[in-house]
């Protein structure tokens, strides 16, 4: 039976996807994340997306799976290895193009400023550079969640403003380099897990960008505008 999903819920769910992706790319997988991914709820949702963690990660003992993933992660995202540096600056900027720029370019500075404008700062423990993929994904997660809160609080103008921010961010940052990054990972990856997660990130972000363009309910009163048959998924 169909259940109607409100914009607030949608925003929350979108944030959820970004949250998962951010965790996956932030660092090597740990036991807790592995268990979460393998837990039935997430596993079945991932399976529907063709990324059954049970399949992809195999049935080997946890320690073995984690070790193999750590080696893949290092080779892909830290180097030495096939190495696809997960930084916007490497893909975008005056000195870049197709994964050939340098670290810590202008995008890194802009990313840090954007975070600061939201009252956020890059965790001091995070030794990655600010324009790391995980940071950009988490930034989207936080914006989407903030949007959800505004819908629920009934401030539709504020929610719309945050949607705009997300749209701009995808256009000016994440969306500009993620497709190239994904295709690089696809070429390079020994492991189907990171390759699939990267593809998932690419497809989801592209789809999310379309979603953010969709005509949105314009009501300015009421707690939640309710379903919009044109633009919103209406069942779950």
């Amino acid at each position, binding site marked *: 039976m169909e259940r109607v999903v409100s914009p607030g819920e949608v925003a929350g769910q979108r944030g959820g996807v970004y949250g998962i992706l951010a965790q996956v790319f932030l660092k090597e997988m740990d036991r807790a994340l592995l268990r979460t991914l393998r837990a039935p709820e997430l596993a079945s949702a991932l399976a529907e997306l063709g990324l059954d963690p049970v399949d992809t990660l195999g049935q080997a003992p946890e320690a073995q799976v984690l070790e193999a993933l750590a*080696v893949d992660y290092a080779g892909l995202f830290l180097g*030495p290895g096939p190495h*696809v*540096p997960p930084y916007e600056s490497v893909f975008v900027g005056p000195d870049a193009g197709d994964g050939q720029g340098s*670290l810590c370019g202008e995008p890194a500075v802009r990313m840090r400023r954007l975070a600061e*404008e939201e009252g956020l700062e890059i*965790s001091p423990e995070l030794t990655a550079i600010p324009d790391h993929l995980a940071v950009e994904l988490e930034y989207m*997660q936080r914006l989407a969640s903030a949007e959800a809160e505004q819908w629920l609080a009934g401030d539709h103008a504020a929610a719309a403003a945050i949607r705009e921010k997300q749209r701009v961010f995808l256009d000016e940052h994440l969306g500009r380099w993620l497709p190239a990054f994904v295709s690089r990972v696809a070429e*390079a990856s020994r492991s189907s897990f990171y390759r699939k997660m990267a593809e998932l990130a690419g497809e989801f972000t592209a789809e999310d960008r379309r979603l953010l363009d969709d005509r949105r309910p314009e009501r300015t009163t009421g707690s939640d505008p309710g379903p919009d048959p044109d633009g919103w998924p209406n069942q779950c």
Partner: protein
Amino acid sequence: MELTRRTFLKLGAAGAATFAINGSLSGAARAMELKLGGKDISRLTRKERQAIPSTCMQCVTACGIIGYVEDDRLVKLEGNPEASNNRGRMCARGQAGVNQVYDPDRILYPMRRVGQRGEGKWKRITWDEALNEITAKLKAVRDGGKPEEFVFHYGRNRMSWILDPFMNAFGSASVGNHTSICEASKFVAQQSMWGPYQDVNDVANAKYILVMGCNPLEAHTVHNALCQRVIDARAAGARMVTFDVRLSNTAARSDRWYPIKPGTDGLVALAMANVIIQNGLYDEEFIETWTNVTVDELKEHLAQFTTEMAARESGVPAADIEKIAVEFATIKPSTVISYRGMVSHYNGMMNERCVMLLEAIAGNIDVKGGRCLKRTGKWANPFGSPKEAKAKIGAVDPKKDYPLAAHKVAQEVLPRIGKGEGKVQVYWTYCINPPYVMPDGNRQMEVLKDEKAIPFHVCSDAYYSENAALADLILPDATYLERYDPETSPSFTIVPFIQVRQAITNPLGESRPTQDVLMELARRLGIGDFLNGIKDSAEYLRKAADATEGLKDVGGWEYIRKVGAWYDKGKKPDYKSYAKELKPEDLKPKSKDERIVVDGKTGTVYKLDKDHPDKYESDKQYVGIRIGGKYYKGFKPYKFPISGKFEIRSALMAKYGFPELPTYIPIPTHQSMKPDELILTTFKVNVHTQSRTQNCKWLTEIHNDNAVWINPVTAAKRGVADGDLVKVTSKVGSMEVRARVTEGIHPGVVAVSFHSGHWQYGRYCSGKKAPAGVGDGEDRHVWWKNFGVLPNLIIPVATDPIGGGQAYMDTVVTVDKTQAGRG
């Protein structure tokens, strides 16, 4: 589309619960965290750039630089006008230093290998894990009572201030270096004659400059400082004559260029000396007073080196040798700049002795415009001094085969370890890349791969070098722009200076200066007493600056961290420093078990003490020299206990069965060459430094490929046209490379630069994001498609038996057009 929003959002629904902002995922690191109160940061405000002075390390010159920092990012490097050697100027390499920090293939985390050594599989570990592992290994080495089985092998080392006490405190003298693959033979020659190694050609004041086997306008030790003064001198009308097998840009900008046969420069210098002596153009006062030979002895010895003989061997016409000799002795001041092209030979050490002789008889030693002793600044050292370690394995210092190789024999370290000359438990490499920079790289690699010979290999590197690829543990080093060192360099103003190297930006990622790593290890190993409680390199430098003579009077650290360099502004060049008279108190014993004595024959004044009770055997005993009843500073020995005079006749050489007077030693392998054989030499280009700049994109865009230079006559005999692919074969290997057919090379020689042909070191060097090679050919932004060849792979290990230097310029090869090159 197969994946609908619905399926995505279903994941989101599951994810939202698990990965909420105040997430319940325990222990999960979060990329951001809410900062209460937030910073008020305007998007419109442009922060001002900070300017931080420091010291370049793209080559060994140590130019003073200024780094411009914006938003915590280094955006630009410029020369520091306060630095007296480079006077605000920089070369291209230096400016591209920015690329070193932000190389996308830089190693930012400690990595431990998984799988086989060299397989290319790695895993990130924490610094704590890395340090625990190293500490445990080193503890075991020490506890086993054989500290020398810990071998530290460095290349560009500007951190001896911490490495030396660390190794001494540890108890191992098994320290390898890289001097012998550069200029060790030159250094040994100088030490055998005037004490210290390194010279400073005071070209700024010279009127006549001879260049022998080097290329100061493009590359040199202390390159920028020398280069700009050569240009000044030329602008002021100085003449310049260059002997080089190749028409370098220095040769091209000289008045005359002689494509000399490799390894005969020393003979030409002897023939010139002969001309000068025969014509009475010598500096009699210097020879008779300050050297240990007489004019008559020299006359007799040099008579055999006629210009005709030199012409036959070297190819330089006899009349020209004569003419240049007369000019050299009469257009004063004059000096000879000599370097690797002349000393990287079997007879390299002797060649330098010949040139030193030529400079001496022309009266150029330590005079204005001549060949000067080096003046370097002195920093205070806030560390304690642990007792000097003596224990070492034979492989790092094969004195038994090379008794005079005071700078060791780097090219033989790994081959000798491979042969079992000393057991190794831990091999730590720092800023060195043996598979790439050493001769016979394949042999070097075999040993690095051999886990019996080298059970544990720690590599400190910021990049995935060919050496790092064969390590067990990679420690991500900070670049030179992210660290602290006390710096100085031989001064071209003849007034010593000091410079600061300070972090312009913080180390990226988890990279950490090796200096700080060694300090931490000293503490963990319980050998850190010498640290005197100093916790890191930044604190060391602060304390050093505040205690340094002269600097402390103008503000110490506060001064130098802002200005970047310091020298005594009131000090004038003290030419002829050897002729300074000693003060009476210099001749008094410093303690009651010391005695000062004078050697009646040589005039050497030296002290006898507990360690050296009956004879003069160590440079540390030297006090001065007595000449005609007066006491002078003389030529202060370094390592070799020489007399204090300029030793043209060397008892030291004689002691080990080498010729005591400068002479000509023909290169054995060149005496039996077949008609189709050629000599391979190598050279540097003006935008790269040895092996460590090719990851700088700005530089590699300019120079990424190399070709073998070959004379048209030589090429025609082989049917080779410009651009053809040829095969160059030596006794240890062969390489295929494009031919560059040019008149600018000696017909018996082929030459190739040695900055190309990396097979690791990231995308800009090798086109591969090593080691998997993915993206090869796909990296559209790396528009260059060829990455050149590395001649070192076909150059055999060949050591100058006296100086210990690698004879890079002696390799006998054949050159043939390849199948592919035909048609």
